[in-house]
């Protein structure tokens, strides 16, 4: 990807976000489910209902509401949450780090597991052991993240209760943070006891997100390694007497990595989508968990803020992956 392409992609971000905002804004208001209807108390008269509707600005036409919201969004506010009574921007900023830390940990676990499985699978290619690796990868891949969450919850939360199954940190721990990146901050400030407590809470949800991702990475990388191993440069290295592990790591792996990184990037965005249910199951305080409540409560400003946040994340991740693939692939770098 050349500079021109990068600039073109950057220029397209604002109209993409505006498009997402318009679609979400209109859809929320035309699909059934009215936040005011949900908070009408017994005995409320039509005037009471109108008063509540006006209080939340829902008495205006959709275009008027959009103009009001756009003005707030441009000034960085994104409105006030109907159910949480706080600024949407503040709420999302407070919770996003929890999801990002979880997604980062899940990605790390997935990369490590996927890499190991792919290398072992390639090393034992053609042998019976390859079936074991392929079978294991198949099982990991066929079970979705939310089912892994339940399985892990029962295995390590109930059957062999080794790990906590809810929350981000023990309620008994008294600790203050300067940022909402609890894990990163505790590691940087060398508070390893706190980091350990946080990791204890994150392992199960991160593993639930990571397992299907790891399986996909393993499958793609293993196929790419097999293809790259049959290429001329690998054959030449073999003819020169290099050992198989050396050929795999030095010659084959860098070439096989490109399609894996490209697909892995897309998969990270899916992993972020998976946080919605997994965070719910483990009562983890990220934006995924918050998104479910926002939808249940028909909290329009919060839903809009959260979807825009997800959209920004997806765009940023895709752009970063494209840049990374360009860096890894000289053919793309030099046109």
């Amino acid at each position, binding site marked *: 990807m050349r500079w021109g392409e990068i600039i073109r992609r950057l220029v397209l971000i604002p109209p993409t976000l505006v498009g997402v905002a318009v679609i979400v804004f209109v859809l929320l208001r035309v699909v059934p489910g*009215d936040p005011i209807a949900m908070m009408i108390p017994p005995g409320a008269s039509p005037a009471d209902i109108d008063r509540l509707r006006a*209080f939340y600005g829902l008495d205006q036409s959709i275009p008027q509401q959009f103009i009001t919201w756009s003005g707030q969004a441009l000034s960085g506010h994104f409105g006030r949450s109907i159910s949480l009574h706080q600024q949407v921007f503040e709420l999302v900023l407070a919770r996003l780090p929890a999801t990002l830390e979880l997604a980062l940990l899940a990605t790390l676990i997935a990369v490590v597991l996927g890499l190991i499985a792919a290398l072992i699978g390639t090393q034992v290619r053609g042998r019976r052991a390859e079936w074991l690796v392929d079978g294991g990868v198949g099982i990991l891949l066929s079970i979705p993240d939310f089912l892994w969450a339940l399985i892990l919850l029962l295995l390590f939360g109930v059957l062999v209760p080794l790990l906590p199954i809810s929350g981000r940190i023990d309620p008994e721990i008294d600790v203050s943070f300067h940022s909402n990146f609890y894990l990163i901050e505790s590691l940087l400030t060398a508070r390893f006891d706190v980091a350990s407590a946080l990791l204890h809470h994150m392992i199960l949800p991160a593993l639930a997100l990571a397992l299907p991702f790891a399986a996909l990475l393993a499958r793609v990388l293993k196929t790419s390694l097999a293809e790259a191993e049959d290429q001329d440069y690998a054959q030449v290295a073999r003819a020169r007497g290099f050992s198989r592990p050396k050929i795999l790591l030095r010659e084959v792996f860098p070439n096989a990595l490109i399609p894996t990184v490209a697909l892995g990037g897309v998969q990270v965005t899916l992993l972020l989508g998976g946080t919605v249910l997994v965070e719910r199951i483990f009562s983890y305080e990220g934006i995924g968990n918050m998104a479910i409540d926002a939808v249940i409560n028909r909290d329009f400003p919060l839903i809009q803020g959260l979807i825009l946040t997800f959209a920004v994340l997806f765009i940023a991740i895709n752009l970063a992956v494209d840049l990374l693939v360009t860096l890894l692939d000289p053919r793309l770098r030099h046109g």
Partner: protein
Amino acid sequence: MSPALSRRTVLQLAGAAALPLSSGLFDAAQAAPSGTLTIAYNVNLPSFDPTVGLSAVNPTIQSIYQSIFDAYVGQAPDLSFKPGLLTKWGWNADHTKITLELRKGATWHDGSPVTPEDVVWSLQRAADTKSGNPIQFVWSKVGNFKIDGNTITGDVLEFEPTLFKWMAFLTAFVLPKAYYEKVGAEGFEKAPVGSGPYKVDAFERNAFLRLKAHPGYWGAKPAFDTVVFKFVTDPTSRVAEIESGGSDITFEIPYEEFDRLKAKPGLVGQTKPVSDIAMIFITDIDPMLDRNVRLAANHAIDKKAIVDRLLKGYGVPIATLEAPGYAAFDPTIKATYDPELAKSLLAKSGFSPEKPVKFTIQTTRGFKPKDYEMIQAIVGMWRKVGIEATIEVYEIAQHFELRARHALAPAAFYNWGNAIGDPSTSTGFAMFGPSPHCAWKGKDLVERIGPLWGEKDEAKRIAGWKAVDKYIAEEGEVIPLFQYVQPIIHKTGLKIVAQANGMILPQLIAQA
């Protein structure tokens, strides 16, 4: 009717199937710890202000509010009323004035005293249309307050017979005037101050709320110094929480799981009927304008079989919208299960199993235990007598919107809570035409219910509501199903006072 397997169904089935496997391997649940009480709670706490917005009218959140804040009037486990922050309350002889007496010695969590000015400010704020209080229409019926020592008097601007009952429930909390005005709404959300038995110590949204006992609390000292509400909204995860020993108490779990867990060593189960009923709204559109069809739909339902088979016996069949324990409950009104009578009623209108009357019934799926399965069973019972109902699944948000627009299907399943037990907040708002919650808009009921809103003679008022309930049952204008029973599972060594309003109040939990 779609047989598609949803993600939610898969979650529930997987959880339900896998949890029993854990039995016997490790018994993680142990005796309750001393000092800290951990409750696996079924909903998140959206907001700390108990008087504004969506969460203020969510009955499920009230347990947390009642731990932190004091209501004007207290409520006993059996729904009767008792002194709260107010020690006395009442009308004058002609119901034109109210008198309230504030408890002496009550303090806010910051140590400052609770004053009559706080009470008046809270009432005035609740009555202000700009405050966003959803119950403003009740609070606005009194005003012109005067303070004399700890006694507050006010004018009745419009008579509301349930005013003092409301003072024990939704949005009826006294907030600290000086503190609130100093920090503002958003500051209060970040650091709430109340006068209840517990004060906020730490809050991680969607994860947990940690409370510490308020040393200056006017009431009995709570048994636990620290209380943690863990927000575990998924029922399978709540079961895992109690089974793993991560929490001391949980509730609102599937009845099958309740039966399994209470048999495990280290855990105890207790149940109590609560002020929440299952019902089917009937909308006054075709074919429900036909009295025979309505009555047949009522008589064809075997409520006992539904409770026994689907709810494992955890429910109490009811004949009106007044459950046992409510002020206007009348045990003489009976709902008979009589499929033959249903058939003969339908025959009078030209319907039979071969030529059934057809309509749609709406229901939620997974919002309440076995809601969809219950409606499936009812549709099966109806089919036998000559009613062919098509099930339409909707979300609860859609139900509220359709109900407010008077656009529900001819039959629509719902659950109705009435924590103050007054007939006006059950039969009244559910069946009075002008109410946005009413599906039956018929003039017959408007004429019967209308005069009861302003009735000042309490005995006459309650008798009036009983007569309305009897009339509704005779006309079949709603289908009351059963009163819910709340399953609570907790560790041995705890003593829990279950509340008829369904609240789990940590101040009423002690070590046995």
